């Protein structure tokens, strides 16, 4: 369930232009003046709870567009059979329990006594309807059908039991179902996306009811008093849409909101010292790495030192890839370039996520060794390389690339950086237009990440959708296959870890860092920082 890092561009920070203007120049000015603001009076208490979100929600229909901001907001109104806790572990949601009764059949037991916002009880028919609805929304550019396509048959056993059959043994089904929201069949049977936005069809089992959706501005909600689990501490909550960094911070400082997500890196240190606010931080699931062209003999952005094409592609040589990896001082990258909002990575999923492993060997920083490796590979004088990346997608993405260019240049690989707006970047990346390019990925399971990023690209299996560098290794493929087919969690995790270790020994991509997510709150509040970076009002508590 790679909850789409890539799928929220429209909302991400802002357009390249404005983000530049606001993000850099303005922030610099802004921050110098924030010192003044620190002496301002204590912010007025914004009653009852108001949260500044960093991305816009495009629709309240929970099955329309599979984009993180939409999922984040929908989670206030709707729930899933399988829930995800703050550490990314699967926990019971609307399903009280589930188990594989044979390799291709999963049985889900529905939680009794759950009520929808309209007072009607949750039934197994609502669940079946909700599993089928994504496939009926054919006009969505980002459908949820990927999470339901493994299911080949559904069987209602009794009022609280549902059996789902898969064509092949498929271990990650519970994880897939953590992405499908359960809606009320009665309310949504004939509903359009507009009906959800107006509130007419927005009937879920979640902790909040919709009061008003003001598109592009705010979502107003009220506590659902018939909620089956811990009731939220707030009777009413407003989620304010504040995609630009400086205004979001200003809203917190002025007391207009009680809490913000996505605290700009440069402000973290300052807010830490301010007694009026608290920070919640943790390593997020978002892992950044450099993807490399491993299939062309003449790669488009690799040349010799005079700018002429090389007769073979140095990136195909493991020694060159090791040299690139050892040239990077990840500690410095995380501490300086990222203002501490990153931790060094050696795997494609974050620590704690299945497939990462307990303590994988860190990628060493060894520029001298890197130079030796380059010489051994036949490039004692280095070569020229251009790195590509987005300029408005990940924390400090452009600066990260510039830092890498300096590290690589120090070992003799003269490196340039070219960045593009996301809208243009992803398309070109997937068409393998580059030689080395930056990508970030957030996943709750190693086998999923590996299947898409490093599985052998194949139209039939659908693997390797983002493996444009065309890494291919039969043993890695076999381990991924075993992990995906294991309905036993322990076996699955072990297979995923083996696959990850196998793959990363060959450095088909160069892992860089895991991002750190930061929330800032009024001092009287607390929030359990989530690995998936979501902000859920129900989990904000007074201290």
């Amino acid at each position: 369930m790679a909850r789409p890092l890539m799928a929220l561009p429209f909302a991400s920070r802002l357009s390249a232009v404005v983000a530049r203007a606001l993000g850099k120049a303005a922030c610099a000015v802004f921050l110098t003046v924030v010192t003044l603001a620190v002496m301002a009076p204590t912010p007025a208490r914004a009653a009852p709870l108001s949260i500044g979100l960093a991305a816009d929600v495009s629709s309240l229909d929970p099955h329309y567009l599979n984009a993180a901001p939409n999922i984040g907001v929908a989670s206030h109104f709707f729930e899933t059979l399988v829930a995800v806790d703050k550490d990314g572990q699967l926990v019971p949601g609307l399903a009280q329990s589930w188990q594989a009764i044979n390799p291709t059949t999963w049985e889900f037991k529905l939680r009794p006594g759950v009520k929808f916002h309209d007072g009607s009880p949750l039934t197994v028919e609502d669940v079946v309807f909700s599993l089928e609805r994504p496939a009926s929304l054919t006009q969505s550019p980002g459908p949820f059908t990927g999470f339901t396509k493994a299911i080949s048959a559904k069987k209602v056993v009794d009022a609280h039991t549902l059996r789902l059959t898969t064509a092949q043994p498929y271990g990650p089904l519970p994880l897939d179902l953590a992405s499908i929201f359960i809606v009320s069949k009665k309310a949504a049977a004939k509903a359009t996306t507009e009906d959800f936005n107006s509130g007419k069809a927005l009937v879920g089992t979640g902790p909040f009811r919709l009061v008003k959706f003001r598109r592009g501005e705010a979502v107003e909600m009220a506590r659902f008093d018939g909620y089956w689990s811990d009731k939220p501490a707030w009777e009413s909550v407003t989620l304010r849409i504040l995609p630009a960094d400086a205004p979001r911070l200003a809203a917190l400082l002025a007391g207009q909101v009680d809490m913000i997500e996505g605290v700009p890196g440069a402000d973290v240190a300052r807010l830490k010292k301010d007694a009026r606010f608290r920070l919640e931080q943790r390593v997020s699931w978002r892992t950044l790495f450099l993807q490399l062209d491993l299939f062309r003999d003449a790669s488009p952005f690799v040349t010799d030192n005079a700018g002429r094409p090389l007769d073979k592609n140095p990136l195909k040589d493991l020694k060159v890839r090791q040299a690139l990896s050892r040239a990077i001082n990840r500690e410095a990258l995380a501490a300086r370039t990222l203002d501490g909002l990153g931790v060094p990575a050696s795997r494609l999923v974050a620590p704690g996520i299945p497939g990462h492993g307990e303590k994988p060997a860190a990628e060493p920083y060894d520029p001298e060794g890197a130079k030796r490796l380059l010489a051994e590979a036949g490039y004692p004088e280095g070569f020229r390389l251009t790195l590509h990346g987005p300029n408005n997608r990940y924390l400090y993405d452009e600066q990260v690339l510039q830092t890498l260019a300096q590290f690589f240049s120090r070992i003799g690989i003269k490196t340039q950086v070219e960045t593009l707006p996301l809208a243009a970047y992803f398309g070109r990346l997937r068409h393998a237009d580059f030689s080395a390019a930056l990508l970030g990925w957030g996943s709750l399971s190693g086998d999923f990440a590996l299947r898409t990023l490093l599985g052998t690209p194949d139209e039939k299996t659908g693997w390797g959708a983002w493996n444009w560098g065309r890494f291919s290794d039969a043993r890695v493929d076999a381990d991924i296959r075993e992990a995906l087919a294991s309905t036993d969690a322990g076996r699955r995790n072990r297979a995923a870890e083996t696959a990850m270790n196998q793959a990363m020994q060959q450095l088909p991509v160069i892992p860089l860092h895991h991002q750190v997510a930061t929330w800032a709150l009024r001092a009287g509040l607390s929030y359990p920082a989530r690995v998936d970076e979501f902000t859920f009002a129900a989990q904000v508590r007074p201290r």
Partner: protein
Amino acid sequence: MGHATFVVRRLLHGAGVLLAVSLLVFAALYVVGNPVELLVDPQADPADIARTVAALGLDQPLWRQYLHFLGQALQGDLGRSFIHGEPALGLILERLPATLELAVIALLLALLAGIPLGLWAGLKPRSLAGRLIGAASTLGFALPAFWLGLMLILVFAVQLQWLPPGGRGATRELFGLPALSLSCLTWDGWQHLLLPALNLALYKAALVVRLVRAGSREVLGRDYVRFARAKGLSEARVVARHVLPNTLIPVVTVLGMEFGGLIAFSVVTETVFGWPGMGKLLMDAINALDRPVVVAYLLCAAALFVLLNLGVELLYGWLDPRVRESRA
């Protein structure tokens, strides 16, 4: 050339402009990329992607997609937003009141401040006040809008906490129409409106000051002003009857176009103040390659400019008898 023929010809020109805009925007976004690649679940496999692309008709050649769009557009259907899943035109109209309100208030502020100050500076260019006004207007031009916006927020919202730092605040519907829900009808709405309107108005006010100052100085030297003075008219009447109307002609021309810009492209102010207007909608749509919204938006903006231009030309005739005569 009669008045009606003039208007009809202008409208035909306008239709040509709209056609050209739609074609250009359509082709440009097609070249930038495919929205499905941007929006689809990253784990989707090539078959999933192909299915989605086909469902949205994005697998067709560009000319066929365009002709399909044109056929629908002629029936008044500008398509559905990819990311919102709602009709593009509806999304734009939903944001229109917020933007229009902000633009009108900003323009009024600019005129209310700009005309008297500009006249003063034009009539008494050597006075201290005249010089100060000139200097201040230069400053108004030079300050970048986002910086000024952030400063306004810092001073009035964060530091003094007199006004909210952003958002639209409470709205009320004029004549009970949801399409006319305005902030300026509530006290809370006014508090939210003031800073962004001020931010937008400052540059325009500086512009008005400059135009009025230059215009009035030029007009003051004209024969008809001297005659008017020679006839013994009071200074107030000379200014009100002769100087001001003649000064306003360039102001109307420039502000007519500037008003279009205020409505269609005040992205920076909307972003800084979290004002849910149309400019933000456009930026988000471009970022997501949400073609229906971008095309519908720019068509609306182009139509607006065409109409404003027409309005400005008609207004000229009213302000300047010579234009009226030559057209008749």
